[in-house]
């Protein structure tokens, strides 16, 4: 095993700066809170700037297929920033999950997604873990697909659905125009990331790939998304720690800044320790997905370790902010909702520990 690169390159830091500047400008806490209950919970104009103008939608897509020829490492940096801001954009569903599926399948639909002009969604429940059986909820027959898939991330704003379905010749991945499906937005626990139920009734479907290639493409998409999600979770952790430290330095009780009390300082020191671990672990997963080395272990370690850290950080942020942390007007709840949803997305930590136990030979 070659030595993984766990640092950030200068190019990645430049990318981070431009993404952070955009999100700071366009997705501040007040704007987020104002938007979440409106009829347009997603900011598609922000998406256009982020995905198309900054080119982040096509980062891991080769230049020959309309992308930027970067790698999952750069996508991970974008996700860290999206975790820090919980901006309401369909990046995970389109630029990560759907794009990874099309990349693995070698589809000619990639350039549209890579350019950011088309939003894609992969029609599986967001909770689906790598290693799950190929879904059989949708069937393919005579050029059409029929069935229902619940809790699909970003489907409500998608133009293109990538649907795993089983036909007479076995499993396949199919492209379906979103207008041919009935997409019903669900009330999502995560206010800044939407899920929807997708109903397909003899919807016209174009074959992307079939057989083992389809199973592999789906498995790759779920693995890549699970591994990269750890970077978003690292971003959530970093936000929670930074915000809480700032708050506790300025909040006075008993005649002192609250952040001077040792019981609180030690909790923040513990969060810092967790952040150090989360960052290294998430970087390793992103690097593994880039080099192709040690991928299954790196991804399951990342999800087993970083998921609970992000939830812990968000929960600590609520508690240590005291009363204000429980209110709707403070953004802490948006991060808690994101962190808890992320813990379930692409497999819970327990699910990944079970995967890992087999991978590293710790039998029952």
């Amino acid at each position, binding site marked *: 095993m070659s*030595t*993984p*690169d*766990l*640092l950030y390159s200068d190019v990645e830091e430049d990318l981070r700066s431009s993404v952070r500047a955009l999100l700071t400008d366009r997705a501040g806490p007040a704007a987020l809170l104002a938007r979440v209950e409106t009829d347009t919970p997603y900011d598609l104009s922000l998406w256009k700037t982020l995905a198309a103008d900054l080119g982040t939608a096509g980062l891991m897509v080769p230049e020959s297929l309309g992308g930027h020829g970067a790698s999952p490492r750069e996508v991970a940096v974008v996700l860290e920033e999206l975790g820090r801001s919980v901006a309401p954009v369909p990046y995970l569903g389109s630029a990560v999950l759907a794009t990874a599926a099309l990349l693995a399948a070698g589809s000619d639909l990639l350039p549209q997604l890579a350019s950011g002009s088309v939003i894609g969604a992969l029609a599986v429940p967001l909770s689906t873990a790598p290693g799950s059986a190929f879904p059989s909820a949708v069937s393919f027959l005579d050029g059409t697909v029929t069935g229902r898939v619940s809790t699909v991330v970003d489907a409500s704003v998608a133009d293109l659905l990538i649907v795993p379905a089983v036909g007479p010749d076995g499993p396949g991945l199919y492209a379906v125009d979103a207008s041919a499906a009935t997409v019903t937005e669900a009330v999502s626990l995560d206010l800044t990331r939407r899920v929807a139920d997708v109903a397909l009734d003899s919807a016209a479907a174009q074959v992307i790939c079939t057989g083992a290639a389809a199973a592999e493409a789906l498995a790759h998409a779920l693995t890549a998304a699970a591994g990269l999600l750890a970077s978003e979770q690292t971003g959530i952790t970093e936000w929670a*720690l930074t915000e809480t*430290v700032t708050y*506790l*330095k300025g909040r006075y009780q008993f005649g*002192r*800044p609250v*952040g*001077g009390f*040792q019981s609180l*300082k*030690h909790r*923040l*020191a*513990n969060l*810092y*320790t967790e952040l*150090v*671990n*989360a*960052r*290294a*672990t998430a*970087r*390793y997963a992103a690097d593994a997905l880039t080099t192709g080395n040690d991928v299954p272990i790196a991804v399951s*370690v990342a999800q*087993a*370790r970083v998921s609970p850290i992000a939830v812990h950080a968000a929960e600590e942020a609520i508690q240590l902010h005291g009363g204000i942390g429980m209110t709707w007007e403070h953004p802490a709840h948006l991060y808690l909702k994101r962190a808890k949803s992320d813990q379930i997305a692409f497999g819970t930590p327990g699910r990944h*520990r*079970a995967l*890992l*136990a087999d991978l*590293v*030979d*710790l*039998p*029952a």
Partner: protein
Amino acid sequence: MTAEELRAQVAAFLAEHDPASMSALDFLRARFDAGLAWVHFPEGLGGQGAPRALQAEVEAAFAAAGAPDNNPRRILIGLGMAAPTILAFGTEEQKKRYLRPLWTGEEVWCQLFSEPGAGSDLAALATRAVRDGDDWVVTGQKVWTSSAHLAQWAILVTRTDPDVPKHQGMTYFLCDMTAPGVEVRPLRQITGEAEFNEVFLTEVRIPDSQRIGAVGEGWKVAQTTLMNERVAIGGTAMPREGGMIGLVAKTWRDRPELRTPDLRDRLVQHWVEAESLRLAGERQRQQLAVGAPGPEGSAMKVAFAELNQQLSGLELELLGEEGLRYEDWTMRRPEQVDFFGRDAGYRYLRAKGNSIEGGTSEVLRNIISERVLGLPSEPRVDKDVAWKDLPR
């Protein structure tokens, strides 16, 4: 200075000095004199002012040639703490006198810092040094002194002025452990063995020429020693399943009759934590290599201590009936901690020291919260009070 140039120097040195036909001591002395001991030290002091990162190349080349090593058991205190302190604060004469036999291992070093009443609050120490002509007369008691029974020399912090606040009245010395008035007693610990010592200093005469730094500047000098201590702990690369997790995982694989579902879930959780901590250590080394050291060191020590304690506890439970037994309570005086050579009961007990030695986890959490996160410091009630007026 490049890695290639250094490798060429080592090859040239080895061509003239065959480790197989020379005594280990002669070989090490020659290596020191050739500037290939610690390459980042100055010329004439065992080095040549090369980048510190190149030391690993040199070590690897010598190890490959079967060269004698200068005994790892002395590294932590002599090489890791005394040497950088003498280099930073010693006079030219002191550097010439002490560094060569320290590096070759001819002279073993120990550290006379902690006292029964001054551990985490090191600046509260009470060992007195009083000037008498060209000498200082030192009286007091030190504790937790590794290798004191083997050492020729000690780095020593003393109180020289009780009338000023505690950080100002300290002075740093090199103490000859064979001098009259130095008494070393084993300090038996939780494991049954005496890895450490108590050291009693009764009117020990130390020449002023063995003072390091100015009178009253001992705290500043000691900070250099302590910073190097934290660098020395936990700086080496580790493979996956290195350390305690590998040992427990091996027992798990080898002994299916011991497995239970609850232990498995805990084991996998710890496996994940160990791998994550290993990656954090690797990331820190990569940052150091590009010259951007992060503040992660203290956090990693806290995490390591916790994990080692949990794993060593898990190991005992896993062993079940065997965990009820202990190999041997006979008092011994090991030269170094044999963590993996002894049984699970020893590991469980010895790991309790991981969150105390080299800075307690509580003090390290204060350091993280104050120096890394910038949170307000604890109120200092002793800051402007003369040391002699502090409650003890």
